[in-house]
């Protein structure tokens, strides 16, 4: 599979949020304002790309030679947790501005299933190193795209007369369903 197909496929056809259902907790939780959604999206792109590279290296150069593939769940989550912590400390020291815009989203990312999901999908699809880099960046971009679009819709929803019982998460899920229907239209764009 060439890299352009991989990119388009990961952003539109197999959108990590709307087609693979990963990362729904932040999707419903932090999508009430456009600004916070964009911050979360950026933080996910950053962490998912870094952690995919590290988990890929750990899997292929440590776990596979030792026949320890079954430990990948344990190792991957540890790598992600350590990485998130490290990135947080590094940003705090080096780039105050970036830390202030991404900072509060970073701890949440450890338990964001999109990050772990992308790391596992790289292995499941048997991708090489460069493919992993491209696939994880574009999957995370797909997440950012979906959450930003969705936040735009939700900001509008604040002023619309939603029935009492459907307020909040319920109507958010239905809206996500309709968005996911729109993204189904991309199926067939790749292969």
């Amino acid at each position: 599979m060439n890299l352009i197909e991989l990119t388009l496929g990961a952003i539109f056809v197999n959108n990590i949020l709307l087609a693979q259902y990963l990362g729904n907790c932040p999707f419903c939780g932090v999508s009430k304002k456009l600004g916070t959604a964009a911050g979360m999206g950026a933080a996910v792109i950053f962490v998912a790309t870094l952690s995919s590279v590290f988990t890929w290296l750990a899997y292929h150069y440590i776990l596979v030679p030792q026949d320890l593939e079954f430990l990948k769940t344990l190792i991957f989550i540890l790598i992600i947790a350590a990485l998130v912590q490290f990135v947080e400390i590094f940003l705090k020291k080096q780039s105050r501005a970036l830390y202030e815009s991404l900072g509060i989203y970073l701890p949440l990312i450890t338990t964001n299933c999109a990050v772990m999901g992308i790391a596992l999908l790289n292995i499941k699809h048997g991708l090489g190193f460069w493919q992993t880099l491209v696939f994880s960046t574009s999957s995370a971009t797909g997440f950012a795209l979906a959450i930003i679009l969705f936040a735009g819709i939700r900001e509008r929803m604040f002023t619309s007369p939603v029935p009492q019982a459907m307020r909040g998460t319920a109507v958010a899920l239905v809206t996500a369903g309709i968005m996911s229907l729109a993204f189904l239209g991309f199926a067939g764009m790749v292969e």
Partner: protein
Amino acid sequence: MTLLQTLTHGFWRDLPPFRLVLGLCPALAVTTAAENGMGMGLAVTFVLIFSNMFISILRRVIPGKVRIASYIVVIATLVVLVELFMKAFFFPLSQQLGIYIPLIVVNCIILGRAEAFASRNPVLPSMADGLSVGLGFTLSLTLVGSLREILGSGTWFGMPVFGAGYEPFAFMVKAPGAFLCLGLLLGLMNAWSRKRGEIFIQT
């Protein structure tokens, strides 16, 4: 909370993923069939009971600063156990659930119960809490899975429900159907609890 309350709160008051809006990803992803939903629910129940147990045992040993990391190690170990067990004894189901089994590690319900309950309660109530929330999750997932399977493929646990003339409503087993089904169910539950005059927790 008394032990009985602990044992039953997961079935309505804190029913995941509807009342506790946590763990949405598996609830959407694996519920294309009732059997998958149930399998996923039971796997989560197992992890939840034992993670609550170990975390409750270790609650005085784990320092506050590194507690989340320690919880994740406990949970990840249990998930590896479940993964290997399902591969050995329920191979077709484990193929169906795919990457969503390792993803139990990042299921917020488990970390949420560890933080909210097991880290400050004795062992037995913690296990009861895990059992109750886990079974509540299993029930919800089986319900969503049944609805989607009956409408989307015309079967229930693999058995045909309607006659041969039924045209499956394939939309329901695809991604949009999952979101719609969960959203509408949540709306119904909210309407019901408003009618009963319970405190409205959804915002």
